[in-house]
């Protein structure tokens, strides 16, 4: 299977299915009471934009397997609502200051309102999945709901792993620990679930859905590592989060885990002391020092190489999954994703 060229179909389809999803999202984000403390902030994150990768992957997979865009639409809308619910709660848990170039929801409205808004977004996502009945019928709707339940469970288990590492100030982590955490926390809801649900809707059958775990994991992990690299080295105006925010938060990225492994004993002790402090007590000089040590020990380069390797493997798995399907824009979109995740800036 030839590799996708840089002029791939990804941006076009992200725009097309993203717009389709945004329009359908309005059904769930319309003006309702109480407006000020609930539905206005509920609509805030979804209206800040975003790449729409998850809903587009869901619709494209469904279409590649023969479904109409409408059949995948409610599941795509639900994904976007769940994604925003996770973001609101993650920002509280990570004490983040910025999201998509603006202050986080809890920074604007306080933690209590933000947590409630996150709950509301998750429930609206559930509503969108129930609305699948109209296009998918009761049996398939129930199967999609079961998939959503598993996705949510895997994601919160992954989040628990990462929060636990931070709470216990874990500093002896391996690459395997990192991969397991990302599989659960990121990959399930970013790539595995959209692919599985798309295939479920497109084929009407839940046979062989485990095949999508391998592809989604390899693609999703490459995506996450690239995302974490952008946090350190990307353009903050395009990336939308505070530069070096992951270091400030003590997030166990592949770069940080590599630094903990490669640093000298003295460096490791200073790093462990920094990670053991509450965020508000961390100093900018330490953040700059960690960033510089990452460069010195080649942690960013190492992570880039791992991301490249995983994207290559995702491309290989993609061939096995989709090669038998007729050529289509949707299939070409999926095949081009491993290249696209690395080319993001």
């Amino acid at each position, binding site marked *: 299977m030839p590799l996708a060229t840089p002029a791939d179909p990804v941006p076009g389809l992200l725009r097309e299915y993203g717009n389709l999803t945004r329009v359908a999202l309005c059904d769930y984000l319309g003006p309702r009471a109480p407006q000020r403390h609930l539905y206005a902030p509920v609509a805030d994150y979804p209206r800040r934009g975003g790449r729409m990768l998850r809903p587009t992957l869901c619709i494209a997979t469904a279409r590649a397997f023969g479904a109409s865009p409408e059949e995948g639409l409610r599941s795509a809308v639900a994904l976007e609502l769940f994604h925003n619910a996770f973001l609101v709660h993650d920002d509280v848990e990570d004490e983040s200051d910025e999201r998509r170039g603006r202050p986080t929801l809890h920074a604007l409205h306080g933690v209590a309102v933000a947590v409630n808004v996150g709950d509301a977004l998750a429930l609206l996502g559930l509503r969108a999945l129930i609305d699948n009945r109209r296009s998918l019928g009761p049996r398939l709707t129930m199967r999609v709901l079961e998939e959503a339940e598993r996705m949510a469970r895997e994601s919160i288990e992954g989040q628990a792993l990462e929060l636990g590492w931070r709470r216990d100030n874990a500093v002896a982590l391996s690459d395997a620990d990192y991969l397991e955490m990302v*599989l659960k926390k990121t990959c399930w809801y970013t790539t595995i679930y959209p692919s599985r649900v798309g295939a479920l809707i497109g084929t009407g059958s839940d046979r062989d859905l485990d095949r999508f*775990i391998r592809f989604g994991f390899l693609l999703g992990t490459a995506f996450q590592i690239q995302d974490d690299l952008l946090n350190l080295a990307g353009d903050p105006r395009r990336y939308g989060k505070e530069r070096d925010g992951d270091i400030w938060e003590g997030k166990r990225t592949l770069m940080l885990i590599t630094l903990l492994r490669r640093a000298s004993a003295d460096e490791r002790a200073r790093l462990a002391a920094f990670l053991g402090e509450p965020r508000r007590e961390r100093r900018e000089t330490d953040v700059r020092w960690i960033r510089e040590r990452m460069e010195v020990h080649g942690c960013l380069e*190492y992570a880039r*190489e791992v991301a*490249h390797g*995983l994207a*290559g*493997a995702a491309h290989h798995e993609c061939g096995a999954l989709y090669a038998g399907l007729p050529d289509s824009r949707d299939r070409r979109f999926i095949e081009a994703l491993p290249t696209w995740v690395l080319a993001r800036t």
Partner: protein
Amino acid sequence: MSTRNRVTRPEPERTHPIRSWSTLFGAAEGDAGRTDVVSRSVDLAYRVVDEYIRQGQKAAQRLSERSYAPEAMARDVQELTTRMGQYASDFMALWFELVGMAATGAAGRQAPARDDAVRPAADRPSPRRDDAVPDALAVPAGVRIEVASTRPVEVQLDLRPEAAGARLLIHALRAVDPDKPRLTDVVLEAASANEPARLRIGVRDDQPGGVYTGLLIDERTSRPVGTLSVRIVAAA
């Protein structure tokens, strides 16, 4: 015949094809360190995800082989009840349609689209006044489906409009494979003044997995007015 020596390529140093993930994205050849990182990380990633999938398959196998101790049986019965409730609610809307047609003498009309038939009444457009069900026909609605099975079972009941108000019969269900025994424990009880119609299906533990189908017959005309399909998951 030319006496010139043929121009040939030198023998490559490699002894086998180069299959490296890193070269897919144009990594510099000969960068041994880089290739090593990529190979090791891909290998590790496959080990992590394969172990994860293996754990999931083991869990699924455990579930399909679960023992029938009292506690496990109680859980199964609970699941069964939930499923039955789901089936009953799915068919409730269909039954409303049928009763409505019988009331207006429209039994010969084309059946509603399948998707509409299973859509709960609250989601459908309000019926026109002349389609509304008169109060006098407010008989107990719905088909109560009761399944006794130790394995997951999917039930699909399709009724034609002519089935409304008819006294129905059903015989044993057959599989496509003639060697499989019939599913005999299928009973359809007509609705009474206080109870909705009841379909009871019992699946023996030794019944082979597969799809079993049968016709619902109008007792008066002996004509088929619907089908019943039962899919039984094969025993692990």
